[in-house]
Structure formats: C-alpha cells, structure tokens
C-alpha cells in the first residue's frame, strides 16, 4: 500500500481518538523524567527505565492501534516502518515521520520525526547530555512490535534537544518470534 494511503489512514485514526492537551502531556512526561532522574543515580539507568516503561505501554497499545486504525497485515518490514511512521505516530502523538536510510538488506532504517510533542518547553542542561529524553517512544515501538512477533531494536540517535537538526530514531529488525507451543501432556 502506498504512502499516501497510510497518511490518510493516519488522519482518519487520529480523528477518532480522544484528545488530551499537549501541554498536560508535555508537563506530565517532564515531571516523570525529572523524578526518575532524582530516583536513579545514573543517567544511563534512566534511559533504560524509560525504555522499559515504553515497552509496557507498547504491548498494550498495539491492540488498540490494530483495532482502531483498520490497518491490515504488513507485507514486509518496510511496510511496517511506514505504518509506524505515518499511522501509529500520527494516531497517538499527532506527528508523522519520514522513513529513510534503509540498509541493503532492508532490515534497518531511520525514522525522522518532524516534531515531538514531548519536547515542548524542554531545554536540556549541559549536565544531561547522556539523557535520551524521548526514549519512552522507542520502548513503545519495541513493545508494540514484539506483540506482533517482531523483535526489533529501537533507539534515539539524534535529538533536537541536543542541538541536532532533527530527531531521529534508529529502528532495526532482529527476528520474527516463533510461537511457542507448550504441550500440557508432557
């Protein structure tokens, strides 16, 4: 299916969703991150924790996404990346991303975010250079895809908060998870 098709599907899905004030979201997320920074000693463990929280959101959110977006099965991983960039991000965050930088095997790409509502008002102090502020989103993507039997790795590689021109998420396909059947008689 084409990009235009996905863009439209994203608009439709977004219009169906309940809305919440962007400021409320940004401030809530901001206090969540700063509280984590107070609780954890190292910035790296904050990144890990944010990713874990995102993962737990993702494994639940994917069901809502598939139920409300009307998106059918994806043909390949390229398709999946487009759906995330154009439909899923639009539906939940009202942003879209461009999918670029495919490797030759078509297993790794970069999502270039046009905007990030979580970044509103945020100015990272120099001492927080190691913090991946939006890492929660990466966790959501990983969790969501794991529920549909795809193991991926996902992380921020560029961030406007750190002075880069764009925010970019690196997405890499690892493997298709097999269903494990447990025979109860054994």
């Amino acid at each position: 299916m084409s990009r235009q098709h996905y863009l439209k599907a994203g608009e439709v899905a977004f219009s169906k969703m309940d809305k919440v004030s962007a400021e409320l979201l940004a401030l809530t997320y901001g206090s969540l991150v700063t509280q984590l920074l107070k609780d954890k000693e190292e910035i790296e463990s904050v990144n890990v924790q944010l990713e874990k929280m995102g993962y737990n959101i993702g494994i639940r959110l994917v069901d809502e996404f598939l139920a409300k977006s009307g998106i059918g099965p994806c043909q390949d991983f390229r398709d999946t990346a487009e759906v995330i960039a154009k439909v899923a991000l639009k539906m939940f965050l009202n942003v879209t991303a461009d999918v670029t930088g495919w490797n030759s095997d078509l297993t790794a790409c970069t999502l270039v975010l046009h905007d990030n509502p979580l970044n509103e008002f945020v100015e990272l102090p120099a001492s927080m250079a190691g913090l991946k502020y939006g890492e929660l989103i990466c966790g959501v993507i990983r969790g969501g895809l794991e529920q549909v039997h795809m193991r991926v790795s996902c992380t921020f590689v560029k961030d406007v908060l750190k002075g880069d021109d764009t925010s970019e998420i690196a997405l890499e396909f690892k493997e298709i998870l097999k269903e494990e059947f447990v025979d109860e008689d054994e």
Partner: protein
Amino acid sequence: MATVYVFVIVGKGDQLLYEADLSSAGKRDDSPHLDQFILHAALDMVDAQVFHTQQMYLKLVDKFNEFFVSGYVTAGHIKLMLLHKHRNEDNIKNFFQEVHDLYIRTLLNPFYEVNRPIYSSGFDKRVKQAGKKYLT
C-alpha cells in the same frame, strides 16, 4: 556616556534568580557597585506596593539620587526589577511583559527547579535581545 539598565529577577525569600546588565556600551560616570545596593534597598518598596494595585507592572517603586527602580511582580510573586536613569514607562512595561513570557517558558521546562537561579543560555540570550529591543 552609557545608558544604565540593570535587570534582576528576585524569587521567594529574596533569592536572586537572574541578573543582567543591559546598559549600553560605554563608560559610566558612577560606580556600578551601587546598582546592587539600590536594587536591594528597593525590595521592601516592592513588597509594600504590590498589594496596592491589581496590576503586575508597579511602575516606579523607588528612587535614589538620579537612579530609578521599576518593578513588576508575577502572580507567583517573582519580582522583576529594573534599575534605570531614563524614564520611559511604556518601553519598560513592554520589556517586563516580554521577560515575564520568557520566565514562564523557563518555568515550564521540567529541568528548571522553581526558585533556583536560571542558568539557561537561551533565556539569557532572549532577555538581552528584549533589552536591545526596548531599552536603548
């Protein structure tokens, strides 16, 4: 001769949050050390006047020789104060309102702790821009 504009933000408990010298370049014929004393002395005048008006902009709050002190108090009782020698109420009011806006944006940044000094370089830059725009 330089035109004198010294701007400070004072928080709760008279804690200094931010300080900027927005004076134009050039030699001053008085001692810059006086600035802090005069602003400091004006704090009590601000506290006295803040309940006499509903406006945030308090206009002139204090005088010392040829110096004037203008004040502006936000809803959270953060005091913006400007030391100056020229009377120019409209421009000073506009300047305060713009800095108030900038302060609110800083306050919304989750990494800024309330009533702590403001170290943000973006804030500093924008305050100086506002100073150039309104106070020259």
